[in-house]
């Protein structure tokens, strides 16, 4: 495990793993995707989880995102032991504190770009006027103010990812998880997206956790955790 940037070390970690193991049942065979992992993620950083395919980085990201639960060990996200929450409670927790940026964008195809950005606020019960204002401001922040009425199929890959970033950040989450956010983008667009996320992070004081292979993205890391065969590696990736 390597920390490439040591600022903010005094703040409470946004994520804390303590002896976490995650085991999957794969057709009767128990597979340990994450093995007794202990580490903490410092808030307000660009944190990278890196490793080869099948190493367990996506599982780690799923655990951080509270869409999966540890088999053993303790996991705290935003100081909350997520394993102790019911399904509805953990869902509400995600709605408030965690946001995702997916590799394949995962925008809702029946909603316009504007509606996609507005949607997380709807889940939080934000009033219509405020919802619209915040969605418009967020779309403006990612440079898509003029494309709000477009459906995802009318946008390019880079534009879709911008909408996905706007959707993730509009609710002001504590933690944004991005699984290979640049994998489906060309190098130039990928660089733009990284720059955008960095700018927004500076503006909004959000912690970003990435799972990536992309050296371009990895070069922006404040903090990097390397994982192999479900275990965190000592030393730099």
């Amino acid at each position, binding site marked *: 495990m390597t920390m490439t940037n040591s600022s903010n070390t005094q703040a409470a970690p946004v994520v804390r793993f303590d002896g976490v193991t995650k085991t999957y049942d794969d057709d009767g065979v128990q597979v340990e995707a994450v093995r007794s992992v202990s580490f903490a993620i410092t808030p307000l950083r660009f944190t990278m989880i890196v490793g080869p395919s099948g190493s367990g980085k996506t599982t780690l990201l799923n655990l951080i995102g509270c869409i999966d639960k540890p088999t053993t060990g303790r996991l705290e996200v935003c100081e909350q032991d997520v394993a102790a929450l019911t399904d509805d409670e953990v869902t509400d927790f995600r709605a408030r504190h965690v946001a995702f940026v997916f590799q394949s964008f*995962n925008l809702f195809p*029946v*909603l316009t770009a504007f509606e996609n950005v507005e949607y997380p606020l709807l889940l939080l019960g934000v009033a219509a006027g405020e919802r619209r204002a915040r969605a418009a401001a967020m779309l403006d922040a990612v440079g898509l103010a003029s494309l709000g009425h477009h459906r995802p199929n009318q946008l390019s890959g880079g534009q879709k990812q911008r909408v996905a970033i706007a959707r993730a950040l509009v609710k002001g989450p504590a933690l944004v998880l991005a699984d290979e956010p640049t994998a489906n983008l060309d190098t130039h667009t990928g660089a733009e997206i990284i720059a955008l996320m960095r700018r927004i992070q500076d503006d909004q004081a959000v912690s970003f956790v990435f799972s990536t292979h992309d050296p371009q993205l990895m070069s922006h890391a404040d903090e990097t955790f390397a994982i192999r065969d479900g275990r965190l590696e000592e030393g730099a990736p």
Partner: protein
Amino acid sequence: MMMLKIAFRNILRNRRRSTMTLLAIAVGAIGIVLFGEFVRFVTAGLETGAVEKVGHLTVFRTGYFAFGAGNPTDFGIDDYAGVVRLIREDPALAPKLNVVTPIVSLAGIAGNFDLDASKTFLGTGVVPSDRDRLSRWDEHGVSRRRIPPSSGLRDDDQTRGVVGVGLARVLGLCERLKVGDCPPRPRAPRANGAPLDDDLAGLALADRAGSRPPDGDGLPRLDLLAATAGGAPNVVSLFVGRAERQGVRELDDNFVAMHIALAQKLVYGRTPPKATGIVVQLRHTADLASVRQRLRALFAERHLDLEIRDFAELQPFYKQAVGMFGAIFLFISLIMGVIVLFTVVNTMGMSVMERTTEIGSARAMGVRRSGIRRLFVTEGAILGAIGATAGAALAQAIASAVNHAGMMWTPPGQAAPIPLEILTAGSTGLIVRVWLGLVVAATLAALVPANRGARLPVVDALRHV
């Protein structure tokens, strides 16, 4: 609102599949609504046919319904005119009444002695003008395109009567009464045939001697023989104005209607005349229960030993036919409902499968399981609502086309063909029930795949390809 918008747009996503689903629901709605309206027409027709003949309620002397046919004297209503007046003049009943009229039911032998032909008959003595008013009852409008034929009976002519077409055929009156579909009467081999009973012929001749001149209006004449109250045979002459189809062969072969005074003369002879029943026809069938209750109270107040029967009791065929059509309607509705159910289950199941990643994304963003369930159930309900609305509207258009096509049919228990109709008037209740039923079926059908989608683990849903 957003949920509705998303659900509606999701329906429009796979237009071909949604169209097929909507078609299935619409066809279901068309089938149920059209058949339901047709059943309403048939039921209304059966009710009209029964009420035209026997009114809504018939008042009998207690015991007549079970035993009285064999003893009309003991089971006749003595002061029937008083009872009729009592009913007509009751302020609670008066506005609900259409016709209150006495009848005399009797059985005997009808003979056309010119042809040496005789036949048992079942007769009814009626007040002719009341009988005509009874036959014009048409609360449901099913007979509005039919002009009720005049019975040919007159209040001021006690000798006229009407017979069933079967009786007219048996007694050789077809030609003179211009009955269609009547085979020519073969000449009876006199040598082998038994001569007419001397006593019967004698009685007939004796009666004729005291009556008006035979065939005064050129009408065929029958001699009716029945036993009087004392058991003595009695004969009267009847001039047959017309032959009527009764709809049931047994009744066609036996039916005789005559002036009540003639029936009373035949049954009661010189003793004071009675009525075997008092027919009460209401303006609206819906009043039946309240009128029955009031009549009971009225008879109890006056210590009248009378019982009341409704048309369904007097015409068991009505109940059977209504029950049968009701069962067929239920069966068809269930089949249509099941088709709709499976179609929507299939459509929503495919939709859940195709949108698994979306479900995962929504759950990751903070949509609860109940939110996913609600979305798919809303889509099912919208499909049901659109399909059922389109189906109900199309059903009305088809019904209108059928009603204007001029098709004819003979309903069960009816004598003559009538225009085939699909009763659209007053169908709002049926349409609302069908609409709600289909929407509920589509909603319930969506619940199964919706549950499946909602229960998907978020990680598995996001990984779905």
